[in-house]
């Protein structure tokens, strides 16, 4: 923790959705930081708020979403103080994002070359034939074979892995400072997964780019991330350096998650699944949203406030009775 | 069942428009059933001394060029208009269901033939085809009914085919087949009830179109003949007087027609929400 000037600081962020059936408290007091060049994993089950949080950082939340408290500070400037225009220009230039299911994440009736050109045109001073040159250069960088030919291909003509490479090319086209990768390899086959992850890692290293890797796959996070944020039901329950987290998980949920991940060194029979479901976020909830599923529940766990203990330097846990 | 009723009440409460359409529906039903007794005047009795009188207390919708009470004529016409469209829709419902279910269940040649037939009907602008069929069959009310049934047939056949097709391999059909039921029994007792909900939606969505279509045909002078009170023909007769300002002759029967169609369209949307909340737009 030598630098006190993080690339991105999410500070006490709360966000809710207004729906016809009630207010969904999707994020509550979410805080964490990312340094330049650091790769941070955000793990948790689906519905834990990982994607909602990344959309909030990008400023592309659903119109029904409302941020009720907190700040997001990027490069020392609060994003909520920026105008819509400024945010738009920042997206894709300073912060980029890639998504799950790359084949549907690309415009089906536009060639990949044109889609890449759209973004280059938007964020660079390249014009005319330079744009095409830059686009081909990017396709080369993400190792797309025969980019001249692929340039005129439509997304449906490429494999999922190829489309994800195109997505990465689009995302890194302006050498952003931060890349958010939302389940980038889910649904791809294993060899492609490794290739895509290596591509993201190399791209990040070359540019000293901060990376947020959103995944439900703890193994993937362990392999590629410097730090890991564990989320559950809109709360950040634990933040720690990867090694620390795996050596000594302090939150019961993290421990369960690690237990639920198949590991070569452990017998599959020991694999424990996590009992219960995510709570209904429309209801009145106890301070600790994991309490309902927790095996170590004590009476005062339900009382606010939800604690945030620093058990050792850089290891934060939102539990009154850490393991 | 009570869950259905509760859901119904919920949909009604959520959606006053559906409630409105239900009220309108029962009003139409009442007029269709009791119209002749509710009408204050004889719809056919002319009174030339009182011709072309604008709406007044005695004649809420005014009188026409022969002095007939437009209000009474509009009310009396409800039965005929509804009868034509109900008859036509029933015919296309029955024929379409049978054809569609057979196509979806048996597949193969049956499916090819029936699909080719529906495609061919749909290849025509439907109202134009209706005109052609009426001209070939002859200009009578029954033929208006048959014609309207023919042009609506594809809608039912297509829905029934899709529903039956998706259930062909379903467990309950397989079970019925294995326990020795013939095709006829399976189609009638196992497929039939299961395709009913989407077919009901189709009926109420289609009813408005059937009414419009039948009224359109009588507007151009087919089927119903004067002096029979019928909305389409009343609008046609009243059209001559619009340019001289006697608007009530055409506007009231036209408005009745519009409300009837509106009622069924809203009912169809409501019913669709009720049966399949996912299809809401």
């Amino acid at each position, binding site marked *: 923790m030598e630098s006190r000037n993080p690339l991105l600081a999410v500070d006490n962020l709360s966000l809710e959705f207004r729906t016809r059936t009630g207010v969904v408290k999707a994020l509550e007091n979410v805080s964490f930081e990312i340094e330049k060049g650091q790769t941070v994993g955000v793990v948790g089950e689906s519905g834990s708020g990982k994607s909602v949080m990344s959309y909030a950082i990008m400023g592309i939340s659903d119109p029904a979403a409302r941020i009720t408290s907190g700040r997001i500070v990027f490069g020392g400037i609060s994003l909520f103080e920026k105008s819509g225009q400024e945010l738009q220009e920042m997206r894709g230039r300073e912060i980029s994002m890639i998504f799950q299911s790359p084949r549907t994440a690309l415009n089906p009736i536009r060639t990949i070359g044109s889609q890449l050109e759209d973004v280059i045109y938007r964020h660079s001073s390249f014009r005319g034939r330079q744009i095409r040159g830059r686009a081909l250069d990017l396709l080369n960088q993400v190792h797309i074979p025969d980019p001249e030919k692929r340039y005129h291909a439509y997304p449906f003509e490429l494999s999922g892995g190829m489309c994800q490479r195109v997505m990465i090319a689009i995302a890194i086209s302006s050498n952003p400072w931060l890349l958010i990768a939302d389940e980038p390899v889910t649904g791809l086959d294993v060899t492609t997964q490794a290739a895509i992850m290596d591509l993201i890692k190399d791209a990040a290293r070359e540019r000293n780019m901060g990376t947020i890797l959103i995944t439900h796959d703890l193994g993937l996070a362990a392999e590629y991330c410097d730090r890991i944020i564990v989320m559950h039901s809109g709360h950040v329950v634990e933040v720690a350096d990867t090694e620390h987290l795996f050596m000594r998980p302090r939150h019961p949920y993290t421990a369960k998650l690690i237990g639920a991940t198949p590991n070569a060194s452990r017998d599959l029979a020991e694999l424990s699944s996590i009992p219960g479901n995510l709570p209904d976020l429309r209801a009145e909830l106890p301070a600790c949203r994991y309490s309902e599923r927790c095996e170590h529940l004590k009476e005062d766990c339900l009382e606010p406030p939800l604690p945030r203990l620093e058990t050792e330097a850089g290891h934060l846990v939102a539990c009154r009775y850490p393991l | 069942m009570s869950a259905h009723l509760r859901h119904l009440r919920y949909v009604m409460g959520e959606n006053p428009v559906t409630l409105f359409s239900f009220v309108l529906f029962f009003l139409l039903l009442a007029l269709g059933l009791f119209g002749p007794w509710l009408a204050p005047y004889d719809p056919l009795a002319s009174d030339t001394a009182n011709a072309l009188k604008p709406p007044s207390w005695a004649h809420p919708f005014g009188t026409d060029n022969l002095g007939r009470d437009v209000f009474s004529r509009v009310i009396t016409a409800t039965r005929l208009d509804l009868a034509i469209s109900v008859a036509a829709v029933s015919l296309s419902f029955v024929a379409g269901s049978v054809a569609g279910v057979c196509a979806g269940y048996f597949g193969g040649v049956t499916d090819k033939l029936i699909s080719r037939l529906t495609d061919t009907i749909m290849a*025509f602008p439907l109202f134009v085809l209706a*005109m052609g069929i009426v001209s070939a069959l002859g200009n009578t009310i029954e033929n208006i009914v048959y014609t309207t049934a023919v042009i609506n047939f594809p809608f039912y056949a297509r829905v029934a085919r899709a529903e039956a097709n998706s259930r062909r391999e379903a467990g309950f059909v397989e079970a019925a087949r294995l326990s020795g039921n013939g095709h006829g029994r399976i189609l009638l007792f196992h497929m039939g009830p299961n395709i009913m909900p989407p077919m009901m939606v189709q009926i109420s969505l289609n009813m408005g179109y059937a009414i419009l279509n039948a009224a359109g045909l009588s507007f151009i002078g087919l089927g119903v003949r004067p002096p029979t009170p019928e909305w389409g023909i009343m609008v046609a007769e009243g059209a001559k007087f619009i340019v001289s300002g006697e608007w009530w002759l055409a506007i009231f029967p036209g408005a009745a027609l519009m409300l009837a169609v*509106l009622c069924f369209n809203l009912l169809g949307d409501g019913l669709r929400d009720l049966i399949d909340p996912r299809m809401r737009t």
Partner: protein
Amino acid sequence: MKGDSLLLIGRRLLQAAPVVMGIIVVTFILTRALPGDPAVFFAGPAADEKSIAEIRASLGLDKSWPEQFWVYLQNLARGDLGKSISTGQPVMEEIATRLPASLELTLMGLLLAVAIAIPLGILAATRPNSFVDHLCRLVVTIGVSLPTFFTGLFLVYIFYFLLGLSPAPLGRLSIIHISPDHVTGFYLIDSLIAGDLEVFRAALSQMILPASTLAIFALAPLARMTRAAMLGVLSSDYVRTARASGLSSRTVLWVYAFQNAMLPVLTTLGMVFSFLLGANVLVEKVFAWPGIGSFAIEALIASDYAAVQGFVLAMALMYVLLNLAIDILYTVVDPRIGLEG
């Protein structure tokens, strides 16, 4: 790529063949389904056995059905749709002279509907639950429930009788004007070619009410589909990507969302055109428009069956042509289309 497109277009054309055949068979059946003996009907009340038999032979009715069908096909190929008994002219000629009037009106109505429905649908989709959204829903609900002939009469009452803004609903051009020289048959275009702005204005003022009537009718399904398609596309993954890439709102809306949303709208356009061809008949009657619709109504009342069947055939073929054009457009716009079929 280009060669593929041509191949696909060729395949579409081939796929249309059985549809056209179906249409011809149906119209053939309709011409033969006439109640009673057409020969007796044509011969008139004063005819004797001998003249009826002559007429039967001249009409080819003494031959077998397949033979008759063959003759029917040959006549069609020559553009011979028979003679209209009410006007004594070949049906083909009657339809050809009247078609431009109908086409001009229908296309104008469609154009108006598209010009209103698409912006309305887009605004409604981009501003859910706003005033525009509610307006759109209202227009959609009312629009599908309005009988065209009722709308037409209502507009005539308001704009001709009450406000006096429109000319009398009596055809394409009031009698004080002379129709422009025939080039396209569309008065609006021909008058411009002739450089006669006076006639152009007159033709336009006659056109506005009937075209609006058709437009109100066609508006509803188009607005409904535009709204639904836009809503779907705006929540799609690729629009999210475009937003996350910082593309300007304009690019996101027009290049990414709109172009994709127009694909289903294009399909709806075909269906709407089918409805319009029917509604056109009613509107022509209301506005005394001298198109093929009015011609068909007169023929229907006079039991002039060759004329009616010619009309049905012509309309159906026009509809097939339009659907073909839409399919081809689709093939050009949507690169995925080659995958299916």
